[in-house]
């Protein structure tokens, strides 16, 4: 089993941080082989950015994401850049207000639109939309329990702990069928 | 306790040169590579007398230097030395002192080496107030390559690269050292050997970044081009144009940028002595405290 996961959006959304937390959860807590990489433009804020994960139950030879099995798109740019290459049996989770148009994504791809940013606003800070996304990812894939993703958040993002945990929980509470 | 405080015996101010060399020096096979009459030999003798005055254990003395006429001096001493790349003495010495703070660390550098190519390392070592004694043998130019001008060459004087007279103003190295944060700054000349010995000893004993400018003649390249072809001409030049620092000399007059042209404009006076002293925490000691705290914290965290 090998899975490629990409969390993409624009700089400032905490996508690389989210990918590190997810790598911690999948690699250290769930005991998969994991490599996490990142790509960003030279601007800290506003440029395109992504955090990538390859996870497998065997040693990983090639460490980079080529064809994501799972894409979290936190901005329209991310859909434009990465959506059209998605294979039919893959899954995309998009933010419902940051992404207007999913027509670039080929037919057959499972698209979930969720109010990640809006939930973050309700929790108290738009900056924790990445945490909402992690909760949603855990629920949607069934790869991680709420406890496991929360544990990784505590390990890797100890600052603003209460806010982050609320955001993860709110993401996990989204009405996806578990393991959809 | 630092090595400099290990008083093994009683210093003898009149110790014969042979005995000094026996304790602190090395004798080359064949000739010394200083030019006949060079000020470096006089400077080395004062440095060995300073070691003797402080009763240093020479095996605990380490120095760093780069390229220049002066660079042979360390080979004629019993202390350990990094004969490194041009101008980097203060950076090398910083590594030595931080890695082994118990050593007495010197840099032996020329004016071109320390102030031209090595100026950046010099000002930052001074800023850190790391316990290094930086000794600058100032001969008004690059002697090793044949007497080109350096950042200390008096304006107007002729050198191999200023045949019409040096068009730039020089640094006052002492003023630069003070500005950069050196906590002990002094000036002396090889024409004042007793003063030079005492000044070097004070600087080495200082806890913090100490800077000594040693005016050391190069009659071969600078003197010859500026009407002072013999060593004695330049000894007299230093004696005639020097004054010892005192309360009578206003602070701003203790520094200057010399102007000298043979038979032309001359404005030259060297104020000798300790020109600046200021207590400030020393870097290797501060770092040792930081390290103790970091280790305690790591132990508490189980790392």
């Amino acid at each position: 089993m090998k899975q490629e996961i990409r969390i993409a959006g624009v700089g400032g959304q905490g996508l690389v941080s989210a990918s590190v937390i997810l790598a911690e959860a999948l690699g250290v807590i769930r005991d998969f082989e994991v490599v996490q990489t990142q790509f960003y433009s030279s601007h800290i804020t506003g440029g395109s950015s992504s955090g990538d994960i390859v996870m497998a139950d065997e040693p990983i030879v090639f460490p980079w994401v080529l064809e994501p099995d799972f894409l979290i798109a936190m901005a329209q740019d991310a859909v434009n850049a990465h959506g059209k290459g998605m294979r039919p049996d893959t899954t995309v989770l998009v933010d419902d207000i940051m992404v207007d148009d999913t027509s670039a994504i080929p037919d057959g791809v499972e698209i979930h639109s969720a109010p990640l940013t809006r939930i973050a606003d309700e929790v108290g800070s738009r900056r924790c939309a990445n945490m909402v996304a992690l909760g949603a990812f855990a629920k949607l894939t069934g790869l991680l329990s709420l406890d496991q993703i929360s544990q990784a958040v505590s390990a890797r993002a100890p600052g603003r702990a209460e806010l982050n945990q609320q955001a993860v929980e709110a993401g996990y509470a989204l009405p996806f069928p578990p393991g959809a | 306790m630092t090595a400099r405080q290990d008083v093994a015996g009683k210093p003898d101010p009149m110790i014969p040169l042979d005995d000094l060399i026996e304790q602190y020096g090395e004798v080359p096979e064949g000739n010394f590579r200083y030019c006949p009459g060079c000020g470096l030999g006089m400077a080395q003798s004062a440095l060995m007398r300073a070691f003797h005055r402080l009763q240093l254990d020479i095996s605990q003395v380490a120095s760093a230097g780069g390229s220049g006429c002066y660079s042979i001096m360390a080979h004629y001493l019993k202390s350990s030395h990094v004969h490194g790349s041009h101008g980097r003495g203060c950076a090398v010495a910083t590594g030595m002192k931080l890695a082994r703070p118990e050593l007495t660390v010197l840099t032996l550098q020329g004016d071109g080496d320390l102030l031209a190519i090595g100026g950046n390392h010099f000002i930052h070592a001074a800023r850190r107030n790391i316990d290094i004694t930086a000794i600058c043998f100032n001969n008004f130019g690059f002697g090793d390559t044949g007497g080109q001008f350096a950042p200390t060459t008096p304006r107007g004087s002729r050198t191999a690269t200023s045949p019409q007279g040096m068009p730039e103003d020089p640094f006052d190295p002492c003023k630069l050292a003070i500005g950069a944060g050196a906590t002990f700054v002094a000036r002396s000349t090889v024409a004042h050997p007793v003063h030079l010995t005492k000044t070097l000893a004070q600087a080495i004993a200082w806890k913090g970044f100490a800077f000594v400018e040693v005016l050391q003649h190069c009659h071969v390249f600078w003197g010859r081009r500026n009407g002072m072809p013999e060593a004695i001409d330049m000894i007299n030049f230093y004696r005639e144009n020097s004054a010892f620092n005192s309360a009578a000399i206003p602070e701003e007059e203790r520094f200057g940028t010399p102007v000298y042209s043979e038979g032309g404009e001359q404005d030259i006076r060297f104020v000798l002595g300790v020109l600046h002293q200021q207590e400030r925490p020393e870097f290797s000691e501060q770092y040792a405290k930081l390290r103790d705290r970091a280790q305690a914290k790591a132990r508490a965290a189980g790392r």
Partner: protein
Amino acid sequence: MSKQLLFGNQAFCEGAIAAGARFYAGYPITPATEVAEFMSQRMPEVGGTYVQMEDELGSMNAVIGASATGVKSVTASAGPGMALIQNELGQAIVAEIPAVVINVQRAGPGIGNATRSGQMEIMQSRYGPNGECPAVALSPSTVEEAFWLTVKAVNLSEQLRTVVLVLGEGLLGLQRAVVDLPDDYDEVEKVERPRPTLPPADYRGAYAANLRTDIPPIADFGSGYKTIVNTVGIQPIGGGDGSILGMKEGAQDFTIRRLHEKILARKDEITMTEELMLDDAEVVYIAFGTQARSAMAAAAKARARGIKAGVLRLITIWPFPEDAVRAACAKARAVVVPEMNLGQARMLVVNALAGADIPVVGINHVDSSFITPDQIVAKTEEVLQ
């Protein structure tokens, strides 16, 4: 051993510390900056020293000074910083001062593209310093290997009394992977430089070599011996201070040749490669660093299509593993060298295979995009036609 998610640039740091390095001098530069950041935290924790110098020249010279006192010392840099310290690398190599320099390679000449990766300093590692300097350079391809090769680099630098370069890459330095590292660094092998056992009166200085393969002992500053660390580097045969004894006949030739031969005589311990599916390989991929991962994935894909592909991964870049290249290509009909430069390793492979009639083709990326397995397979099919 415990599993952890480790950052590539931290793996270099932990490897250095595990091998006993206790001095780091650095200067921030992308993409090596995190090495300095982690070291500023870790060095004091383990009883060592971190100092941030005024430039890369300052860092490398502080490393030389610290190492002269007997403390294992490390710095890291990238791109323009590595270009700046070529002289100091040469000084340390000729002065035979053990040191490890981690080059987290970025892209492009000049300032280049700081945040992007490359493999563009293969030749610089060997030919950067002036005056016929030997090089030892290792090229990790995973985060875990970044740790172990930095351990190896520290050990080799001590054993050989030379500078060992760890050729990282932005793509590796900024990568995280789950790794299993020893919890207790006491268990990690540590090599110490040769130190004199003779009484100080009989010590002939740090360069008392009689044979071209000798690695003479060097006394730490302050240990009771007089040591001149001499970057002038023309040392008399049998020891003594060349500056005191004067230039002796043959000293220059002996010194320069010994710097190389002391390394080449131990080539078997230094040159490391990994062989994958080479036994029947008709097409051999020769790759290193991060791009070796692409080559390994490509070989599996090519095999699935019926092409007998194998991989020779160069772990040691310098001294260049020529013997391994020749052995790997014994049955090859073609060799493909994928690398993120314009063909620096390919040139070395061509040189190693001189006389053999085998096409050696390159896949060369200088846009900082990694080479994909499909690109390598496509090139393979093109070459075999």
